[in-house]
């Protein structure tokens, strides 16, 4: 049995976990980040066409010519912003440029509205979280995920998947990055869809632990853990891996970044997070 997994950043974790469930299978890990590169595309297509299953979150247009004998199973990526509803983006005028991918919507809104940096930490409280709709984030995330499963025709698998993935608490590092347990649960779901049942819980490497958002204390109580203000930041827009401990330092860090990037306060805008929160309207 040969299976190709194309799941963007979630690919390695899901592929490894699926292999642990089926050690005799050949499982290839082919994320489609470089889909516009012709040589990559040709190589990927060749592997996909020679597989029994192709597990992917989306089918690129040019794959319409694919060998129809293989089974294509579309599974949605695991996106669940409820633990980190503050994560949003900031764009330049007309949204033509995402200045930085991962931001605190609260800090960005404060910066745009000329709030002195030393006052920003005071915005991180239960009252504001309520105004921002963060306490509805679980319901919204749940509904979104459930709708995704319906869209992909996987309704009958949804509840088993969701109950399992949330059973051990936090399963995401960011809104779109699951931890190792999240990957394991996706792999178990894929395994079930291809007709295998297993009680084993795989333990893949924690591929996405390099970027971890803070679990805000006034929110984390609803996740059953003590919250903290600690960020591990690493993405292409940052010069190196940055570990920030403490809310004050975090606010200062992003204010400095915005100054460096010459973010124009009146001409940039905050990209709404996965839940559609309007940070400026709620807070200012």
């Amino acid at each position, binding site marked *: 049995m040969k299976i190709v997994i194309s799941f963007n950043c979630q690919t390695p974790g899901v592929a490894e976990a699926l292999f642990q469930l089926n050690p005799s299978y050949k499982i290839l890990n082919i994320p489609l980040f470089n889909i516009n590169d012709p040589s990559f595309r040709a190589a990927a297509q060749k592997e996909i066409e020679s597989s029994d299953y192709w597990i992917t979150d989306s089918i690129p247009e040019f794959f319409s010519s694919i060998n129809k004998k293989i089974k294509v199973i579309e599974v949605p990526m695991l996106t669940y912003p409820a633990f980190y509803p503050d994560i949003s983006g900031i764009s330049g005028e007309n949204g033509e440029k995402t200045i930085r991918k991962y931001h605190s919507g609260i800090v960005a809104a404060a910066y745009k509205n000329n709030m002195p940096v030393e006052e920003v930490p005071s915005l991180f409280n*239960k009252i504001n979280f*309520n105004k921002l709709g963060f306490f509805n984030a679980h319901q919204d995330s749940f509904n979104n995920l459930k709708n995704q499963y319906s869209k992909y025709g996987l309704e009958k698998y949804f509840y088993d998947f969701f109950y399992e993935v949330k059973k*051990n*608490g936090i399963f995401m590092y960011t809104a779109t990055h699951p931890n190792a347990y999240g990957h394991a649960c996706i792999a178990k779901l894929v395994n079930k869809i291809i007709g295998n049942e297993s009680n084993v819980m795989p333990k893949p490497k924690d591929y996405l632990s390099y970027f971890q958002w803070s679990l805000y204390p006034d929110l984390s*109580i609803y996740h*059953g*853990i*003590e919250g903290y203000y600690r960020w591990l930041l690493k993405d292409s827009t940052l010069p190196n891996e940055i570990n920030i401990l403490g809310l004050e330092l975090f606010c200062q860090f992003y204010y400095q970044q915005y100054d460096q990037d010459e973010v124009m306060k009146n001409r940039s805008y905050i990209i709404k997070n996965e839940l559609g929160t309007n940070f400026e309207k709620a807070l200012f």
Partner: protein
Amino acid sequence: MHPYEKINAYQRWTRGVAEKYFTNFEWALKKTFEINKNQKIVSLGSCFAQHIAKNLQTQGFSYLITEEPPKDIQDKDYPFYSALYGNVYTLKQASQLIHRAKNNLFQVLNNDYWLNQQNNYIDPFRPNIFKNGFKSYEDLIVERKIHLDKTLKAFLEADILVLTLGLTEGWVEKNSGYILPVAPGVLSGEYDPQKYEFKNFLYAEGLEDFENFYVTLKSINKNVKIIITVSPVMLSATFEDQHVWISSCYSKSCLRSIAEEVSNKHKDIYYFPSYEIITNPASSSSYLSPDFRSVSHLGVQSVMNVFFEKFTEQKSLNAPLARETNNNFKAECDEDIIEGFIRKTE
């Protein structure tokens, strides 16, 4: 058409629990009222009651203290009560306490004191309050009379009583029928089967004890409202020859049933689900300490969040909650001493 078709989401397990995250539940309480900051609140019950008491005070509510600890035993770690009755675990203990306070019954035990190693006099009703004891029996009695007066004053002046039901197991002095908060010999005194016997109260007995307590309380203060809750702290040890978890389950089930019955029966009794918040299966024990018995700070925080949402106008916390640390508030559990005692003697 069937009767469950139109029930609310919170009435269904799938919608009310499985799809939810930890305590993000819609706790649809049958009855609530709004506590304002001028109303005097008195607490009584097991060690979990101390968490509620301390946090009400932290949040600026009028927690009534009629009897402060004597100066020589005041310290930061001193447990927190409206009057110095200590932890009141069983309904029998609560019922007898209010009866003694109302009628000023300061000498009811046949064995009215225990001598500690220093030959000081220990009050069997409060061995964990005056741990070092008194120089004489007369001193003990003087202090007990003051205590009963102050306890009566607390019941008399309370607008709200938060009553936390703890256990069904206890130790009774055979001749007098009075129940003790801690088994003889654990903190002081000596266990003599001729004098003391173990008692595990049944549902009907607990209900009767509650009704006695309630009638007496209302005879002292007819306007007081009661918020009744069941402590989520499990038994430290059971004297029943069975697993401690089975005994815990019995104790809590019995008390929970009594709380349900009396809150349905009396219009001024309101049930608050601290037991359910902490032990709900969706929390995966994250509101418990690693020993699965004590409640973690996070658990207390969850309970108090719901409490303030349901019973106050502020709806959320104004100040950080009291946290148990070595240098701060510590809920004192007499039962823990049993475990310490067992460890020492094993």
